[in-house]
């Protein structure tokens, strides 16, 4: 029997394992960045080399509101919104599935619209209000769609669930949850490899019929 204590989240919201994994990822991306420098230098003929390289690696200021909290962050332009949320803000509820906009696991709301955060550069979201799965519940009170997913068993492994729920909330808000067929069509950007689709549709129908404020 595993007698190890459950890991406690530290003050910055990340536990020891995750912190070291992220540090490793950060280190390896730094190594990757260093390894590409020579080609950058060769392409820099039109501009002073030092200046050009500084441009490439310069972090830019990003003003963004995440789950109701205004943030001023420093980001490299190539960082996606998904990676910013997970790696920099440690909001790991939003999942990285395919990282190419094909699975919907990374779905968040930007200014109230559902988007794939993996295909949006963080810097492009200047001034936007982002809501992630962590921002959906009101304190301890779950959002009606979260509650309905539990009631209808709308998941098995749960990896796609944050994206499914964010997408489902939008599906209802957009007015595209009027029938099972319409829900299937407008939820098609969220893939569930466990195949919990019938229960996901039931959960959405339930909230829609209940007329709750989503």
């Amino acid at each position, binding site marked *: 029997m595993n007698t190890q204590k459950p890991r406690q989240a530290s003050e910055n919201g990340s536990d020891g394992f995750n912190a070291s994994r992220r540090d490793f990822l950060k280190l390896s991306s730094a190594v990757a*960045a260093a390894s*590409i420098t020579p080609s*950058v230098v060769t*392409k820099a003929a039109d501009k002073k080399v030092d200046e050009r390289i500084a*441009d*490439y*690696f310069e972090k*830019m200021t990003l003003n963004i509101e995440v789950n109701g909290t205004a943030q001023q962050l420093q980001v*490299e*332009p*190539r960082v*996606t919104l998904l990676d910013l949320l997970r790696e920099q803000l440690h909001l790991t509820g939003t999942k990285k599935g395919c*990282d*190419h*906009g094909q699975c*919907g696991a990374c*779905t968040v709301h930007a200014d109230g*619209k*559902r*988007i*794939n955060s993996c*295909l*949006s*550069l963080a*810097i*492009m979201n*200047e001034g936007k209000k982002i809501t992630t799965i962590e921002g959906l519940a009101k304190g301890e009170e779950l959002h009606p769609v979260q509650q309905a997913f539990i009631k209808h068993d709308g998941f098995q492994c749960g990896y796609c669930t944050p994206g499914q729920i964010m*997408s489902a909330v*939008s*599906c209802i808000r*957009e007015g*595209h949850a009027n029938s099972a067929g319409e829900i*299937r*069509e*407008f*939820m*098609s*950007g*969220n893939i569930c490899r466990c195949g919990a689709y019938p229960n996901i549709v039931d959960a959405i129908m339930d909230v829609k019929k209940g007329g709750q404020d989503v």
Partner: protein
Amino acid sequence: MIPFEYIRPSGQKAALDAIAKDASAQFIAGGTNLVDLMKKGVVSPQKLIDIGKLPLKEIKEANTGLHIGALALNSDVAENEIVKTKYSLLSQALYAGASAQLRNMATVGGNIMQRTRCTYFYDTTMPCNKRKPGSGCGALKGYNRMHAIFGASENCIAVHPSDMCVALTALNATILVSNNKGERKIPFGEFHRLPGDHPETDNTLQKGELITAIIIPENNLQHSCYLKIRDRASYAFALVSVAAALEIADGKTKDVRLAMGGVAHKPWRLTDAEKFLKGKPATENNFQQAAQIAIKGAKGYGNNNFKIKLASAAITEALNKAAGKA
């Protein structure tokens, strides 16, 4: 993703000056295709010019027709009441494309500029004349189930992936483009090009130009259908798609527009079939004959031979549905 410079110009003029100054720069708007291509290493611009905040989102009616700003979101266009009632074909095509999330990010201009989803173009270990001119076409004798049956060349058999563009071709839309010297109009059917000897060039947009709007002339095409055949019910690229729009008076076809997606390097207008139908009774028999005319000259490359029969059946079906006969 390799590092790049990023700028966000304050206005259209600043954006056009920025692109004119730097030949290696690219515009980014929704990013749904470009970010993906950059992650895959298919394209690697040294500088991105973010035009996402330029005021080019408006959808408005004018005496020349419907003006849609290049930065209008695919979802906003699909949902627009004027589009849904007077240009239903466009709304149908937009809903048939991508997912709700992607439609909330993708812009009209970006949809027009999107690259092929040919797997050989995406796979940087494979030959592809579009990605690397002179390297060969992996698809020609490879796995070409998704590929072109019209207008291909021995250098490239890729297809244009857009649904929206198929509808806009059928609706005789015009594309408005600007550079830092002025603006010009390009008829939709002349915007995208066939691969020929230069598959690396998707379209006729010149360096330094930006798509600012599309204009759709008014029409009386009260019957329309966008039919998309794909490997699953939703959220997949077309094997073939058909945009069919009809104006029917006294049972006869007064005006007709037909275009196909998933079959060529550009949205494929079926002008011979349109000519055949014009003035003839809107009957299934005539629709079938038009479909046979439309597929004349179609050529399969092995895995995609099935598309020829599928195309003719889809044309008939789309016309039947548009005319309310199916």
